[in-house]
């Protein structure tokens, strides 16, 4: 098996601040990889190097056996890498339906269209004409996921989808994961909640201070191991 999406020895950062140190990760096709770690560990930065929003200082990003490091985020989206961004990033002046339709701008074909999204998240069907700005956080999150699916991605990157949402809403979002994965979509999930990650992931990587502290199939990892990696057992400094 070769990885569908892979980051190889990536170092990356913002200006003088280095966020990632020699990070290597790969996701197999159809797999769900959970990235866990504390705030500021570098999980979102890893997603940004995957989407192409952030160019790595060194290292490379591979997608479907091809080096995509030099491709911009729009080109990568057209190849099938979709992000559900942190903070949801609605287009506030567009309606729900229009938000979803813009998601189809990748011009990729596949199982996901307006009806498929409405079937998965029925509450959006009734509110399709409402401006996205008037929605609750949970509804916005549902639109953000639907919008990413409208692009018919091969890999769906989900950044902190449960952040700031009520537990019952988070539950509903996680309930939609199986139907998303049923279509064969590979998922990379950034999540701070360890039990959720354990419940849904095939593979887990624990990020600590810009490095991969622990990585393996969920079945072979224990909670204690992950917790130790989550908080860091050694006192090595970053940078």
């Amino acid at each position, binding site marked *: 098996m070769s990885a569908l999406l892979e980051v190889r020895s990536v170092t990356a950062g913002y200006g003088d601040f280095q966020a990632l140190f020699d990070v290597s990760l790969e996701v197999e096709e159809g797999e769900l990889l959970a990235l866990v770690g504390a705030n500021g560990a570098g999980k979102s930065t890893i997603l940004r190097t995957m989407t192409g*929003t952030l160019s790595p200082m060194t290292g490379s990003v591979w997608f479907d056996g091809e080096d995509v490091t030099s491709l911009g985020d729009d080109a990568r989206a057209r190849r099938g890498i979709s992000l559900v961004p942190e903070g949801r990033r609605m*287009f506030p002046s567009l309606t729900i339906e229009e938000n979803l*339709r813009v998601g189809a701008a990748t011009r990729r074909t596949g199982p996901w269209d307006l009806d498929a999204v409405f079937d998965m998240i029925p509450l959006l069907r009734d509110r399709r004409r409402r401006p996205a700005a008037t929605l609750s956080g949970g509804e916005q999150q549902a639109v953000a996921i639907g919008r990413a699916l409208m692009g018919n991605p091969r890999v769906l990157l989900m950044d902190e989808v449960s952040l700031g949402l009520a537990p019952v809403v988070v539950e509903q979002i996680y309930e939609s994961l199986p139907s998303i994965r049923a279509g064969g979509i590979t998922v990379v999930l950034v999540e701070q909640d360890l039990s959720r990650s354990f419940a849904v992931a095939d593979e887990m990587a624990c990020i600590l201070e810009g490095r991969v502290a622990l990585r393996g199939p969920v079945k072979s990892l224990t909670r204690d191991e992950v917790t130790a990696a989550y908080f860091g057992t050694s006192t090595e400094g970053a940078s």
Partner: protein
Amino acid sequence: MNWVNAILQGVMLGGIFAIAASGLSLVYGVMRIANLAHGDLMVLGGYVAAMSAISYGVPVVITIPVSMVVLGVVGWLVQRMVLDRALRLEEMTPILVTFGLSVIIPNVLVELFTNNSKPLSIGSLGTASLDLGGGLTVGWFPLITFVLAVVVLSALHVFLRRTQSGRILRATSDDPSTVRLMGVDSRRVYATATVIAFATVALAGTLYTMKQGGITPFEGRLTVLFAFEAVIIGGLGSVWGTLIGGITLGVAQAVGAEISPDLPLLVGHLVFLTVLAVRPQGILGRSSLA
């Protein structure tokens, strides 16, 4: 009846302002560029129309699409060769670039065509008018320009609301970096906005040239001001706002002219300043593109 007539003339005049203002609003909404060269592009559009009629014998009606197509192509080139690069630099760079264009365009026009007015005559249509009864008359040409303005703005509205390209333009106005994550090349969105803006300002410029009977190189200095005022009065980013803004400014100028021939510009500016002071978000007050 003079006052009602003046208001009616103002409404008709507002049509040209509205067409000119719509492109300014679109470019600002999508790229956050205040195009200082917009008035000079309007004049350039007028020159293309006038010169195509003078030098190549293009029928006067056909000068409208000729000018729109030529300016549309110019817009695409300017976007790809100049503005795309400027957008990658500092925040102030694009506006300085448009300022540069606003200096270059009229001076090149003087070099090529002198300072003398280049005529574009619409013949008897310029003076023909429609008697509405009760002492009210409206010129055929102002009426046509006003109808054209409504048609153009309606088309723009439908384009922004009903097509995928239009939705992407509006989404880009909201959040360009997220639109890229949907696989959209920003440069293509920007080029679309600029081509529409250049083509519509060419239409405004051609109609303006027909209305004045001719065009001179430096008239853009004043028309850009009208376009900006129309946008601000109506509400930035709103298609119908530009029409309302254009009409408001047109009526203010026409009423001013009715009081005294010296007054139209002053009254127009005063109305603009009043709106800015009382309702800075504009009459329709939308900051998003729609």
